């Protein structure tokens, strides 16, 4: 069944739809699976229904009221989704936090959102809640679901999810009609989720989304790429990211496909392979990770395998390029591409868990053309998506057979996208959000006459595709006025398996330079093979051999580039950019202004005469501890 067959009216809410689907599928269909203790454990729609119902009623008996906020934090797991739907069923509003949020972020969001219920997974999240409890007086209950490590916690406001569900069962005995009554009170225009956006510049803003926003989003996306109730989807990206909500709730609930939760975040890749999902939506860094993995395995494999791989990728690239240009594929290439499929692509796609994939999307940040071509050469239907939290997910997507890797595609149905005179991208659709929570000024700036002002720059090309510039100016200029594109360069650099992160500098400077973060495992393996000794990331990154290796990657990226865009000097950083150090946003976008300030010494040295930078700085661990680092970084010039 296609999701778009369900009529989305203003009266429909997520809980009402949930109830409909539970009644429709009941015990006969698996709603979700979780891998636990090495086995995939299924939950039918009936199980889903019961768990949500009792959890919802349990929270009501603890005092949850309509309009209250329920914050949730933890890995992707059935309990997380149950808590979200349970909150919505009771007319409450869900607030998701990124699992690796630092204390002050958690505190800010809990306090700002007026959260009364906090739902954590295990001791780690409970600790976060306990730490902020005194400073967030509105927080009343902390619920946990994994007993591990909880043996010595006895505070009155701590309660296990099982206990809450028992309370729910008691309430259900007393008032059997209550659950459906609560659901029926809801209206499509009610707020269902409060989403704190990552904010590349300022404090996070809370975007309010209604049931109608979320449901129309799923409908409009699936009108382009239909999903079926027999499909499988793997839910492993943070629920605090709108993309995951769009796939798991907006689309998932409408079609009723099966959600699969990996055992642990570390086993996600393995678990994806076991499931073989039909749809996938992930930010570029995941695809970049896969590319790197393939390239490394390729370097390590035997001669014959390397030859087969080279042949198959050569054919794959030829075919993909012809498809991009919308040219016919000659018969001999079709034959060769079949051989490439049998010998390499089939197996490789299986390893990546992509063998059943119909559509896969990337969005949230820019993805380099190299990575894009790589997946199409493998025969994977990778498409760009463009959107933001404020539009409940996405507004623009590539259509099958009309993929251009420098664009993000064309608007989905019921969505208008325009460019203002200043070049700003604005959009209008039923999914446009209701405003920012307790921030009217920001709402006024963002929402004008129903149009959502994105703050992104872009233009619409001759085929009607939208082209988006980077948020912080995609094109920069050197001090002599010649332009270069830092993000394009960065994605090119990141195509090398040895490079994990790159930061290209040069705005209003005489030439372009780069700060490089090596990939610890790949470069580490490379060093092991060459008997180069190292004990830590900082030490490895400063090895002369590693510098030469990185220089070769830069020379490769520099090739075919116009002179002003070429990287002249670089430095290997002693650590990888990290969201905990505020260098990246939670969705892994580089915060240029921040790093520019933080690594001022490095930037100065890159444009100075010296060859060495002395660094004395602190790094922050996830639990808030800090460590001081003193080190010398070498600057190396790139030959042209």
């Amino acid at each position: 069944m296609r999701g778009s067959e369900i009529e989305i009216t203003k009266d429909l809410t997520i809980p009402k739809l949930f109830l409909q689907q539970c009644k429709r599928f009941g015990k006969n269909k698996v709603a979700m699976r979780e891998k636990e203790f090495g086995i995939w454990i299924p939950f039918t729609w009936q199980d889903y229904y019961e768990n949500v119902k009792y959890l919802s009623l349990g929270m009501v008996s603890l005092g949850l009221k309509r309009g209250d906020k329920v914050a949730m934090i933890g890995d992707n797991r059935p309990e997380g989704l149950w808590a979200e739907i349970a909150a919505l069923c009771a007319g409450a509003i869900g607030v998701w936090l990124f699992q690796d949020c630092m204390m002050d972020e958690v505190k800010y969001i809990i306090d700002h959102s007026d959260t009364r219920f906090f739902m954590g997974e295990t001791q780690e999240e409970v600790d976060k809640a306990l730490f902020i409890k005194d400073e967030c007086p509105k927080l009343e209950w902390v619920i946990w679901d994994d007993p591990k490590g909880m043996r010595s916690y006895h505070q009155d406001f701590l309660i296990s999810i099982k206990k809450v569900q028992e309370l729910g069962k008691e309430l259900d005995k007393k008032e059997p009609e209550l659950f459906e009554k609560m659901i029926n009170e809801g209206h499509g225009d009610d707020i269902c989720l409060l989403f704190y956006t990552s904010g590349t510049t300022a404090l996070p803003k809370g975007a309010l989304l209604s049931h109608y926003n979320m449901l129309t989003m799923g409908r409009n996306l699936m009108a382009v790429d239909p999903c079926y109730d027999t499909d499988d989807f793997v839910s492993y990206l943070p629920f605090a990211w709108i993309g995951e909500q769009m796939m798991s709730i907006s689309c998932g609930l409408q079609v009723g496909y099966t959600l699969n939760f990996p055992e642990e975040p570390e086993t996600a890749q393995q678990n994806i392979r076991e499931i073989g999902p039909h749809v996938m939506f992930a930010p570029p860094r995941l695809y970049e990770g896969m590319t790197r993995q393939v390239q490394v395995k390729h370097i390590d494999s035997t001669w014959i395998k390397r030859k087969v791989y080279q042949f198959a990728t050569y054919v794959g690239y030829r075919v993909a390029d012809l498809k991009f240009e919308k040219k016919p594929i000659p018969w001999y290439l079709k034959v060769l591409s079949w051989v490439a499929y049998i010998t390499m692509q089939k197996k490789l796609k299986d390893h990546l868990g992509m063998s059943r994939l119909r559509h896969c999307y990337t969005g949230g940040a820019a993805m380099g053309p190299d990575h894009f071509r790589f997946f199409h050469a493998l025969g994977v239907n990778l498409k760009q998506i463009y959107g933001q939290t404020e539009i409940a997910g996405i507004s623009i997507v590539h259509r099958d057979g009309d993929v251009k890797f420098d664009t993000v595609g064309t608007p989905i149905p019921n969505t208008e996208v325009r460019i203002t005179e200043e070049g700003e991208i604005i959009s209008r659709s039923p999914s446009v959000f209701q405003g920012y929570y307790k921030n009217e000024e920001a709402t006024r700036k963002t929402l004008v006459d129903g149009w959502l002002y994105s703050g992104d720059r872009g233009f619409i090309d001759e085929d009607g595709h939208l082209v988006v510039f980077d948020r912080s100016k995609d094109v920069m200029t050197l001090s002599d006025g010649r332009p270069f594109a830092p993000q394009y360069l960065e994605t090119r650099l990141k195509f090398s398996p040895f490079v994990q992160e790159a930061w290209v500098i040069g705005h209003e400077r005489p030439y372009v330079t780069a700060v490089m973060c090596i990939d610890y495992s790949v470069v580490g393996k490379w060093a092991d093979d060459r008997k180069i000794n190292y004990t830590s990331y900082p030490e490895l990154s400063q090895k002369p051999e590693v510098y030469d290796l990185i220089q070769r990657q830069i020379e490769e990226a520099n090739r075919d580039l116009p002179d002003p865009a070429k990287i002249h000097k670089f430095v290997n950083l002693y650590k990888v950019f990290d969201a905990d150090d505020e260098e990246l946003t939670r969705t892994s976008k580089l915060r240029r202004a921040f790093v520019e300030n933080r690594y001022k010494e490095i930037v100065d040295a890159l444009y100075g005469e010296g060859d060495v930078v002395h660094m004395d700085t602190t790094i922050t661990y996830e639990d808030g501890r800090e460590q001081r680092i003193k080190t010398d970084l070498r600057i190396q010039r790139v030959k042209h």
Partner: protein
Amino acid sequence: MVQGGEFKEGDTLLKLEDIHMYFGKVAALAGVDLEVKKGEIHSIIGPNGAGKTVMMNCINGLYKPQKGNIYYKGKRINDLKPYKRAELGISRTFQKIELFGGMTVLDNIRLGRHIHLKSGIFSGSIYVGKTKQEELESRKFIEEEIIDLLEIESIRDKTVHMLPYGLQKRVELGRALALNPELLLLDEPLAGLNLEEVEDMARFILDINEEERWKVTCILVEHDMGVVMDISHRVFVLNFGYKITDGTPEEVQNNPEVIKAYLGEEDLYATRR
């Protein structure tokens, strides 16, 4: 001392009486007494060559002391072979990892469970009845109690020698736990680990000791004073074959003889702080 029957927390689980162990004319242990109560984490500390590992080897039966008695649950076990002592519930890890490098993590852990498998070679070869039941129970135990506890889901099918050192240490602990021990001997479980791995390991030891499911008594030989003082109930200080003292962490830290034996190493305690 209680003999046989159900052992409660606080009962003496293991007792070493006047243990002498010589290698040629070198006295590795010269009359050592130790009493470990059920439910404790009892650490043994001392400088290099003090005889800590020799003590461990005497307890688990790798060495046979020339003089003295070892009682486990009130029963003298001097003459029992190591595997017999394992059957009684004494399990251990080693200072230098002693895993089967070519086998997977899961197989290494399963091996620790072998002692509890009762079915014979014939029913095993056709996998029916009792064998099947036993295998299912053993799988459940390993997955739910060990893999989940030690958080090694992502490596269960990896070959051990491919793993980083810190994870190998964890696997070794997993194998020792597969025995479902009552007394666990941990020989330098933190050596060679980085800060994060040390914290994980210390937490696992606490879990094993405190969690209702396990409640394992631990004897811990360790050089990391920060962790030893943090997690031990009692600390036994050994100095070249002789006991200096045996007491709570506070008593030991304030004992002048201990400070003397560790002279020049006062900062040892501060290393992880």
